[in-house]
């Protein structure tokens, strides 16, 4: 009896003790949960871009547009992708797609980094399409120039690579995380779980959806390096059913333009974009930002403003031509330039005065490939009025459908080859020849300067095992084979885009006595010499 009572007493005391302890335990546990949730929330909502505000050029090359908030992929995965799917790359690493790596930077020019949604995330920025390299000789080191057209980057191939990798069985949460860790990433348990169960499946789904939205690429000629259908992504954002767009409106591939000296362009209200469809520099910047994923609710306004201001500053100039110039010939060329070119292209590489500079030249007189012009339609213009609609000061209201291509100033023209809006003419000297005499096929993607003809070397098929992109302006080769193609000569005689395999690639136009193509060769050489001073 006594023993039983003692036991019960002890038991009860123990229970009371337990109960007291449990209350403490529960309190402690609740506190821990609250702290954990607060930490997770703080981490998840942390939004910190890597910035270089002390160095505008570096900010341009490596800063964020805000697109990484929408489209950024975790840094570890970005670094791992070339090792995970090497078979879908033309060569080794991101470099093989034309990305530029500089010393001391572990990610290429044209990428941004931002801590967002719990990860360092990488995405593209302006410099992906607007920073390039040149070399004096095949043996020289490439010089990186901010603001010049990224004539070596192949966005079409990038899109292909990402899609093919995403659709590969290897693109499963475990192998992707493993590849990221092999590429140097260190993940906490929480990050790994997040990657394995949320992020990687989400990236895979997003890449597959993007592939579908980017199907407009299947309806046009291969862009190759330095070019892209730049209004295609905007149509993809609007989710246009591309199958219903007429073939004649489906080709919108253009060269990436240079971004130097924006202030003089803004000051003269020049018509921007190749067809001059917008005369507002700010609107053009926001529109271009869409290409990096910087949609209205995600755009990084301070960073965009910073870069826009730099683009408009005097510091944003093309580098001077670094090779010898024959001053006598240049002087002769200047007189010819003034007579033939200055009214449309400006007095010099810095003085953009001229009656028709920045104005739209009707397609019936410029007669260059009309496909890009026809690709930008009134229907798209109208719908663009909805973009940035939540922000009255930023809403797109300047887009207009035009009837030709805009006359551009020629600052830094030596770095802007190949020429014309579609990059169909390899050198300035070729552009001064009659359209029929221009090269029907050439190679793009070499960054060695062609000092004689001005532009990039375009006659070399490859280098160090890598092939350059063969650009065909029309069907080249066996006449019998060509005869089986639609529009093999890629003619657009009525100045309206005629569909066909080479549509968009024609090197026609900017041709005739008024354009200097009838001048004797030595005069043309002199003009080339003078243009080196731009």
């Amino acid at each position, binding site marked *: 009896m006594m023993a039983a009572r003692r036991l019960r007493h002890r038991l009860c005391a123990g229970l009371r003790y337990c109960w007291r302890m449990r209350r403490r335990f529960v309190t402690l546990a609740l506190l821990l949960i609250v702290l954990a949730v607060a930490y997770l929330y703080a981490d998840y909502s942390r939004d910190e871009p890597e910035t270089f505000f002390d160095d505008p050029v570096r900010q341009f090359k490596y800063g964020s547009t805000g697109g990484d908030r*929408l489209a950024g992929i975790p840094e570890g995965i970005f670094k791992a992708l070339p090792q995970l799917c090497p078979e879908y790359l033309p060569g080794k690493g991101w470099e093989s797609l034309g990305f530029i790596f500089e010393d001391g930077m572990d990610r290429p020019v044209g990428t941004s980094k931002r801590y967002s949604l719990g990860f360092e995330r990488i995405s593209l920025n302006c410099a992906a399409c607007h920073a390039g390299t040149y070399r004096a000789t095949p043996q020289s080191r490439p010089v990186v120039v901010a603001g010049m057209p990224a004539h070596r980057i192949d966005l079409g191939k990038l899109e292909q690579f990402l899609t093919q990798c995403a659709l590969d069985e290897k693109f499963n949460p475990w192998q992707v995380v493993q590849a990221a860790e092999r590429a140097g990433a260190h993940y906490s348990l929480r990050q790994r779980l997040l990657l394995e169960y949320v992020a990687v499946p989400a990236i895979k789904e997003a890449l597959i959806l993007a592939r579908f939205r980017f199907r407009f690429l299947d309806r046009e000629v291969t862009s190759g390096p330095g070019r892209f259908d730049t209004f295609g992504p905007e149509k993809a*954002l*609007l*989710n*246009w*059913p*591309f199958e*219903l*767009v*007429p073939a004649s409106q489906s080709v919108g591939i253009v060269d990436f333009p240079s971004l130097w000296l924006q202030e003089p362009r803004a000051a003269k209200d020049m018509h921007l974009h190749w067809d001059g469809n917008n005369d507002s520099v700010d609107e053009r910047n926001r529109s271009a930002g869409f290409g990096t994923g910087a*949609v*209205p*609710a*995600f755009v990084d306004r301070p960073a965009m403003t910073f870069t826009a201001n730099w683009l408009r500053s005097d510091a944003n100039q093309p580098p001077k031509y670094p090779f010898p110039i024959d001053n006598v010939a240049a002087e002769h060329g200047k007189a010819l330039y003034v007579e033939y070119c200055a009214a449309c292209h400006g007095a010099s590489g810095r003085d953009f005065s001229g009656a028709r500079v920045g104005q739209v030249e009707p397609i019936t007189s410029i007669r260059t490939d009309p496909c890009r012009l026809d690709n930008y*339609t*009134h*229907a*798209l*213009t*109208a*719908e663009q*009025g*909805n*973009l*940035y*609609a*939540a922000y009255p000061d930023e*809403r*797109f*209201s*300047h*887009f*207009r*459908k035009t*009837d030709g291509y805009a006359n551009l100033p020629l600052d830094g023209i030596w770095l802007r080859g190949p020429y014309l809006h579609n990059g169909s003419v390899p050198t300035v000297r070729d552009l001064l020849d009659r359209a029929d005499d221009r090269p029907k096929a050439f190679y793009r993607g070499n960054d060695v300067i062609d000092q004689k003809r001005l532009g990039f070397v375009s006659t070399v098929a490859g280098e160090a095992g890598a092939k350059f992109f063969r650009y065909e302006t029309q069907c080249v080769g066996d006449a019998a084979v060509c005869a089986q193609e639609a529009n093999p000569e890629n003619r657009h005689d009525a100045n*309206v885009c005629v569909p066909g395999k080479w549509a968009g690639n024609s090197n026609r136009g900017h041709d005739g006595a008024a354009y200097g193509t009838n001048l004797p060769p030595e005069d043309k050489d002199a003009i080339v010499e003078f243009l080196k001073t731009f």
Partner: protein
Amino acid sequence: MQRIAVVLIAVAVLALAAGGIVWSKYFAGGTQTFASDRDRFTYGSLNGELLAGIPYPIFMILPRVFPDLVAQYATEGYGPAKVGFGGYGAFGLAWEEGQRLPAGLSIKRLGYERVSLNCAVCHTASYRLTPDGPPHFAVGGPAHTLNLQGLLRFLFAAAHDRRFTAARLLPEIAVHFPLDAIDQANYALVLIPATRNALKLAEHELGWMNGKPAWGPGRDDAFNLPKFILTQTPWDDSVGNTDFPAIWRLGNRQGQLLHSAGEAKNLYAVVATSAIGIGSLPHAGFSRRNEWLTSFIGKLEPPPFPKAIDAALSERGKAVFGERCGMCHAEGGARTGRAIPLAEIGTDPEHVRAWRQHDADRMNAVTAALGASHAEVEGAQGGYVARPLVGLWLLGPYLHNGSVPTLSDLLSPATQRPAVFYRGYDVVDADHVGFVSTGVAAEANGFRFDTAQRGNANTGHDYGTDLGDADKHALLEYLKSL
């Protein structure tokens, strides 16, 4: 006591905060500013958004979520090359470059931005002078390209689609609009479901149109709309499909009958009842706004004929006009602005039959009960009103039901007028006066209009058809100048 006071204060603070949120999310705003009267007419609100406003962020992204439905309903009844892309533009709305939405769509903030219709949606003409040329927009002209029925059917189909959920729409909206947590909840729990249900309700109210011939571009069932919706008259089998009219120079129509069949006797009544038709309730500002509209369209002018007119030929045509047409169509003609009895005019009778005096009485009772004054309408006057001709070159296709593609066809005997043609293609036919309605481009881009369908007859108005070719030619030249 102190405790109670604290609780009361806390409750009051919370209630105030909640009230503030409700105010800011559902009521704040309400003003619009415009650079010109033209813009006010084209993009200004008639206060319809209180009753029939769709949240702009939802409206804006619908074509992006349902591109397949745009393609289906923008092209139904049209030729193979009719575009089924380009968002709302695919429905033939007059969309000026640089504007958020097409003419006739107002955006007004009441807590959130709301889209509603105004007069300009049916009364802005869109036209081009060459097949590859840019579109021009004439304020007050008939919206002959507007596929209103297709647009409505698109919205209704979207409302029935499983994609019409917050899970699908919200991410699309969030790309363009910054949404805080309250906004997200508001869209997910209130605005998206409410919009979806409102569209289904609207579809139910428009169910009667499914059994009737298609409106096609540039037309609606003008008086069956108020009959079946506003006055809730039991559905009948009438067909009142009618072309959108131009609303130019209406100040000159005092004392005349208005609408196709004389359903109104003064301009204010036309404006007020039309405003009610797009959801504008007779509340504060209703009559003042309608008076502004009345005076604006009273003086509105059409654009001049865009090509050269042979002055001598036109002068000869003027004489023919005076002799053969002036009595009914000249300014101050004896019968101008009066109803020509059906038996005499001989045009399609369906519109007249669709709207009787008892329908008008019923509508007058409803509009009076709603609080509108001076908004009385009449039953159809037994025939069609002979209108003074203003901006005639942009009014094609002709007759009240748009059954005759060009003026040149109208001057031919009914048996020689085209039995089938294509309408809604926006290229001006300057020779025959009207829009291009035959040929490859018209058939590819236009809506197939079959005059054999009920309400579409191209008979009657057998006037001037006996003239010689020279006189017709001269008359046509003069008609271009009107």
